[in-house]
């Protein structure tokens, strides 16, 4: 049994129907637990006061905003190389979710920045990078909706995702070069395995990251299923027109 089996839309829908209830329950539980724990069960930070509670939204959303794009990149590559329709549709399905995550990260960042940095918006490298990511999501979604033929749209958006990824990385360095920034360091540096925040904040944060991650997966499953059904409807109608 290979993973590629699920590239078949029917098999994917069957898997999705089985997986989704579990995913939704798990996402709901971990997300509400993480956020409730973070909101009610953690102390205020010495310097940031109660605004530290915003990280339980801001950090997971930012993480998923990047991971969603990365997932779209992998899905686009799979479409371009192996031409599995489910892969292309999953990339399409993930884009609005990624867009929303980016928006949440930006909005919570701005709300947090107001009391902490004294400004709603600063052209800090990270904020700016997320703004650029936001534009990439918008362009990607707009390109999907602008092209009628679904396969051509999948081709074009996949190439855009590839090229966009290269430019997103470039922009990241360009923006860093351009402004050294006010933003705190990473809260959970993966590479070093260490952490820059204390345990009281860390565990609810991890729980809420898991929650956002599961929610993302559940949403992608749901939305990919929607896309597959729309494609199938389209195919059936096209066949009916030909007099099948």
């Amino acid at each position: 049994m290979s993973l590629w089996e699920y590239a078949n839309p029917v098999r994917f829908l069957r898997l999705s129907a089985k997986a989704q209830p579990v995913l939704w329950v798990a996402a709901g539980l971990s997300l509400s637990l993480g956020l409730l724990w973070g909101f009610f069960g953690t102390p205020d930070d010495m310097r940031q006061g109660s605004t530290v509670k915003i990280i339980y939204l801001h950090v997971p959303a930012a993480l998923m905003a990047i991971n969603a794009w990365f997932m779209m990149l992998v899905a686009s590559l799979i479409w371009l190389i192996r031409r599995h329709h489910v892969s292309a549709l999953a990339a399409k399905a993930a884009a609005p979710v990624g867009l929303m995550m980016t928006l949440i990260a930006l909005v919570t960042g701005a709300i947090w920045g107001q009391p902490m940095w004294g400004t709603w918006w600063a052209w800090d490298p990270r904020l700016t990078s997320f703004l650029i990511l936001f534009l990439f999501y918008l362009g990607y979604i707009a390109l999907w909706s602008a092209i009628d033929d679904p396969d051509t749209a999948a081709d074009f958006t996949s190439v855009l995702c590839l090229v966009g990824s290269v430019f997103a990385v470039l922009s990241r360095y360009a923006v860093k070069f351009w402004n050294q920034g006010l933003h705190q360091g990473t809260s959970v540096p993966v590479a070093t395995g260490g952490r820059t925040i204390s345990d009281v904040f860390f565990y609810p944060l991890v729980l809420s990251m898991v929650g956002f991650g599961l929610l993302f997966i559940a949403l992608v499953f749901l939305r990919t299923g929607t896309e597959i059904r729309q494609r199938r409807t389209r195919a059936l109608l096209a066949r009916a027109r030909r007099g099948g």
Partner: protein
Amino acid sequence: MTLRVEDLAVARGGVPILSGLSFSLRPGTALALRGPNGAGKTTLLRTLAGLQPPLAGQIHGAGEAIAYAGHADGLKAMLSVTENLTFWADVFGTSDIAPAMDAYDLHGLADRPAGTLSAGQKRRLGLARLLVTGRAIWALDEPTVSLDTQARSLFADSLSAHLQRGGSAVVATHIDVGLTLEELDIARYRAAPDLRAGASDEAFL
């Protein structure tokens, strides 16, 4: 150069429209594609010209030997007739545009910007482009549209001269071009509605 097509299937917008199509076209012969609107004549010609991949089957001997003339003539309104023709001659690596100008009686229009030509004159210029490509197989989509009787006979002369030189042509047309051509009724190759092979919708049915 013989153009050989084996068991070809083509799709338009991801939907198969022709399948099981086979024919071969020897040098010096021309084939007229017949069939009602929407039968797939344009799609077939574009596939032969390499502008879209076939769903199934093989095409031998086309590639760099085929010159395509579609509904749009690829003319620039702001360039003169000579400039338009010279451009295509340069792109295809030939240099002499005089025979093409002769064949379609374009000398009187040589310095007119293509944008000021009538529809029929534009078409003549578009067809003259075929002569400067220096290619052996012509794929023509409705070549006689908007041509008057006189221009149509110019086209017939040019086509028969091309065939005499050992060239060949596939012509999609509703009307008699003034030559006797072999005919191929592509309506007979209409893809069965339940044909799935290679179509992009296949995975969803």
